[in-house]
């Protein structure tokens, strides 16, 4: 019952967002209550839908790169050859997390100029830790008996990785990716301070002109995006994990 009610709310919220993107004028009367008489109510400088898509694209690109880097690093440091690098890679990645994203942006602008570049770098930097940590935990906590069996049945090291270790680690890795992507959706908004094309633009415009309608629009769209990513990755994670993580009470 609860789950059904939850998905119903989500669906209604999604429909509302969709309607807003396609027909913003429907929402004008409600939003007008938030602003002074002669202020604009709907953000029209850049098409909202296209801003949303650019925001999404930036997050997807950053998360993909962060995932590739973090997963490769986690694989490397869990192999015998790379085990010496485990402490080092851990500290590099946690530095990435303690560094404020604004500082990363500020440092990147002189090198990469204004636009999407610095934001992308900051997001990648920022997204590494959750994916790395999860991948590392997943790879290090596989039942030793399972690894022993894989070795004992004559799998080579790459075969062990591809057929046993990664599939078993996948649910936890995906939940790391999900966490990283959701953080990125929020973090990407500050990218608009260095002229990246994101929904942050709407919020910043609102802040500059005390236009609460703009702030609300930007905020709600960012939240919707975060929910969308969260939900789709949760579904993916379940697909990978459901059957074997199910408890024994499903026993036939």
């Amino acid at each position, binding site marked *: 019952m609860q789950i059904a009610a939850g998905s119903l709310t989500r669906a209604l919220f999604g429909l509302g967002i969709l309607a807003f993107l396609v027909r913003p004028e429907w929402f004008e009367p409600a939003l007008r209550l938030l602003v002074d008489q002669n202020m604009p109510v709907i953000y029209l400088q850049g098409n909202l839908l296209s801003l949303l898509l650019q925001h999404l694209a930036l997050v997807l690109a950053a998360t993909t790169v962060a995932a590739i880097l973090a997963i490769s690093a986690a694989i490397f440091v869990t192999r015998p050859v790379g085990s010496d690098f485990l402490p080092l890679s851990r500290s590099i990645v946690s530095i990435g997390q303690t560094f404020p994203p604004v500082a990363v942006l500020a440092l990147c602008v002189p090198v990469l100029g204004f636009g999407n570049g610095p934001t992308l770098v900051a997001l990648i930097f920022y997204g590494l830790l959750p994916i790395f940590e999860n991948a590392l935990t997943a790879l290090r906590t596989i*039942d030793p008996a399972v690894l*022993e*069996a894989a*070795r004992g*049945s*004559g*799998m080579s090291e790459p075969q062990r990785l591809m057929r046993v270790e990664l599939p078993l680690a996948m649910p936890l890795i995906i939940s790391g990716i999900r966490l990283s992507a959701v953080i990125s959706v929020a973090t990407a908004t500050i990218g608009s301070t260095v002229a990246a094309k994101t929904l942050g633009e709407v919020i910043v415009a609102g802040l500059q002109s005390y236009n609460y309608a703009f702030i609300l629009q930007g905020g709600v769209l960012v939240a919707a995006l975060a929910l969308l990513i969260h939900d789709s990755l949760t579904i993916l994670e379940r697909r990978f994990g459901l059957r074997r993580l*199910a408890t024994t009470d499903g026993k*036939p």
Partner: protein
Amino acid sequence: MIEIDEISKLYDGRAVVDRVSMQIPASTITAIVGTSGSGKTTLMRMVNRLIDQTSGQIKINGQDITGTQPHELRRRIGYVIQGHGLFPHQTVYDNIATVPRLLKWDRAKIEQKVRELLALFQLEFDSFARRYPHELSGGQQQRVGVARALAAEPDLLLMDEPFGALDPIIRAKAQSDLRDIQRKLGMTILLVTHDMDEAFRLSDRIAVMNAGKLLQYAEPRTLLTHPADSFVAEMVGQAERAFRLLSLNGIDAIAEDGQAAGAALPADLTQREALSDLLWSGRDAAPIAQPDGNAPRRVTLSRLLAAAAER
């Protein structure tokens, strides 16, 4: 045939396996017994190169094992560990198909093999093939673990405490199933166990280890009648020696012609079981069930007692 010649494994200069030599005849079951930490697992894992020996040589069917890539060697040797180590993300079918797939068998041949093995282990294909390990009981998981090890028809099966996690009743069944399967398929089995009864019930020969050294490698009877030293005697259980000896032989070996009163005993009983029955029923002799028309035969208490005192 497996020839182990002066094999040693040193960790930090300490010999965990210390110049062990043994010749394991083909198509036999050998149990390795010994106290915890005596080097049983280490010795076994050197045979399929999960551990590299420090010195010495192991040959399987005349070939030095260091002449083959470790992972290729392992595909030809079945390996079963305690707690089975089934792949939790794969179905029973895929688990059993592991080594045949590594060996690139074609699909039809793999399916035929999986069907054959599930039938051998009394698991119905239609209801078990698509299940995941967590959907099986402990005993079923253990059987699938052995089936997986046998899938590529290895000549040699290594088993490290394969029944350690099973309860006594299921364990006894698994042991007799293994014995039957070994007779049927004829592979050589090297098995590590803590359970002395299991060693006696299953094996053709028993290897007793202590502190990395092989103290004695002989048939169960010889261990009982001529233990190499006091440690072996202690290990094989001096107190139970008489009963163990009786459990090694069937009653037909000491049966004699003649009548006896009371219920007949099945002909395939061990001497130990017969003794137990006679003591319990308070008889001096019991008839042995015979096919119709055969002369009556019996087993007597006095002959059982004589057999128990055999040197």
